[in-house]
């Protein structure tokens, strides 16, 4: 159990009369790339927000590396080693790509006090450049993040999430709105990062092709409950899953 990074236990959440999530439990082990999929309204986002501490579940709990995350502010979660990417508006538009990435790393380096009196870049320029190089964005290093294309911004977003060397990264629809070539690059970079650093990923996604080729394990939600769990091959062949998507 010690290599369980994320533990979701008996989470239920309802809004008014609508049961968004019912009694969902699963664990995510270190190094896994878990995909969380399901038709619209299946409760993926609600579950995601419970993991992010933004929603307090009615029952059950979420722990990251053994620590309870309910009601924790996002910055506290970040310190616990949880990183995330966003669907939209994910970069700091008036700052350079380099500054974006330095900002992502600086909050985890030293204390607030040492940051005030230390170097202007918090000693992170080299590390930031390495991260930028990893995503093959070096030629954009000094451009304003807001001037980048949507796909490039998503890469910067991922780079920022990784800068703090998190144990767990939650990716919120990383493939949304990204063109095919970029998608391939993004997928390849995520896989490489996971392989090189052993970081655990949880991906919410609608793009089946993306999820199936990226993830090592998949959890399928429908109407708030888990209807299937397994490897991509197993899920692809699972009749219940097919029915849930096509509607029965």
């Amino acid at each position, binding site marked *: 159990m010690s290599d369980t990074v994320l533990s979701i236990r008996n989470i239920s959440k309802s809004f008014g009369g609508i049961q968004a999530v019912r009694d969902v439990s699963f664990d995510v082990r270190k190094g896994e790339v878990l995909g969380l999929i399901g038709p619209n309204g299946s409760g993926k986002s609600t579950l995601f927000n419970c993991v992010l501490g933004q929603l307090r579940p009615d029952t059950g709990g979420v722990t990251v590396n053994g620590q309870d995350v309910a009601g924790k*502010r*996002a*910055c506290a*979660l*970040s*310190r616990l080693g949880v*990183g*995330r990417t*966003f669907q939209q*508006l*994910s*970069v*700091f*538009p*008036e*700052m350079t790509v380099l*500054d974006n990435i*330095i*900002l*992502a790393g*600086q*909050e*985890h380096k030293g204390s*607030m006090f040492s*940051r*005030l009196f*230390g170097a*202007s*870049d*918090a000693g992170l320029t080299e590390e930031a450049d390495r991260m930028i190089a990893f995503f*093959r964005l070096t*030629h*954009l*290093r*000094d*451009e304003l993040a807001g*001037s980048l294309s949507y*796909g*490039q911004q998503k*890469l910067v977003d991922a780079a*920022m999430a990784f*800068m*703090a060397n998190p144990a767990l990264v939650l990716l919120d629809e990383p493939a949304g709105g990204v063109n095919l*070539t*970029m998608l391939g*690059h993004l997928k390849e970079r995520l896989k490489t990062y996971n392989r090189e650093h052993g970081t655990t990923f949880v991906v919410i996604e609608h793009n089946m092709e993306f999820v199936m080729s990226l993830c090592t394990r998949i959890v399928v939600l429908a109407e708030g409950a888990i209807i299937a769990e397994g490897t991509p091959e197993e899920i692809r062949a699972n009749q219940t899953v097919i029915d849930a998507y096509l509607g029965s």
Partner: protein
Amino acid sequence: MKQLKILGLVAILAGLIIAPFTQATYGTYVLSSWLVFTVAAMGLNLTLGYAGQISLAQAAFMGIGAYSTAIMTMAGLPWIASVVVGMGLCFVVGLILGYPALRVQHHFLAFVTLAFTTLAFLVMRNEEWLTGGIYGLVGIPRPSVAGLSLMDGTRYYFFTLGVFVLASCSFWWLVNSPWGRAFKGLRENPIRANSLGVDTRLVTLLAFAIGAAYGGLSGALMAPLVQYIDPMSFTLIISLKILLMVVVGGSGYFFGPFLGAGLVIMLPEFLRFAEAYYLMIYAALVVFLMVVCPSGLLGLLSRAIAAIRSREPAERGDLKEGAQL
């Protein structure tokens, strides 16, 4: 571009050094006033332009600094001690005021600072034993530097200029440090900043408290300048005037407060000919300015520069090599 900026900076500094010699006593006083208010506006710029919070208490913080300096220097204590006390008090008050207000919605700091300014004014006006009440405090001494008296207007101007340069440099250092990066992140995308570990509440609170401390410093410079202070110099209207300086200059720009304070302080001087109508014309000009360039003068300038730049071929990194992704 960088050489242009340095040249501009040197020119401004040179101008500031030469200026008092072209002016009589009153002109020098106005120049000193400009610098004093720029310091206050700088503080507010940190709170507003960098952390995105509206504060209406900057005049109250000036008041705390001014009264601290007046009371302490009139009791024989050195000016620098009064600055430490004044700025320290403002910082602490800033923390106390800011803490509960920042736990809630965005604009509530504005309301709390509004209430605080009114209450501070009441205390200044009513507590005669401490502040001299409506009669204020008269005969505030000017500090002496290395035995040199600063009673001369021009000498005090250079003293103010020195402190102003120090304050500006420390502000520059602050916004270019990792803290500055966090401030900018907070301004541009607070949700993303939070998710990266930036404690947005703490950072906003600090921006407000530091901004307040700058207000206190401004007050400490003001008291010996005018040598007589009363509560009327620290009302809500003055807070609004300082806010105007920041907005007109361009909120969030480093030179915004300097430009804005200059405009707001110099304009009445130029409108003096209009006598009774001057306030009317001033107010009308402000309305006009806000309608025509809502992002301030520097905002207008930066858009003009961007418009000129966009006529040149795009120099973006990835387009230099051809699209790779």
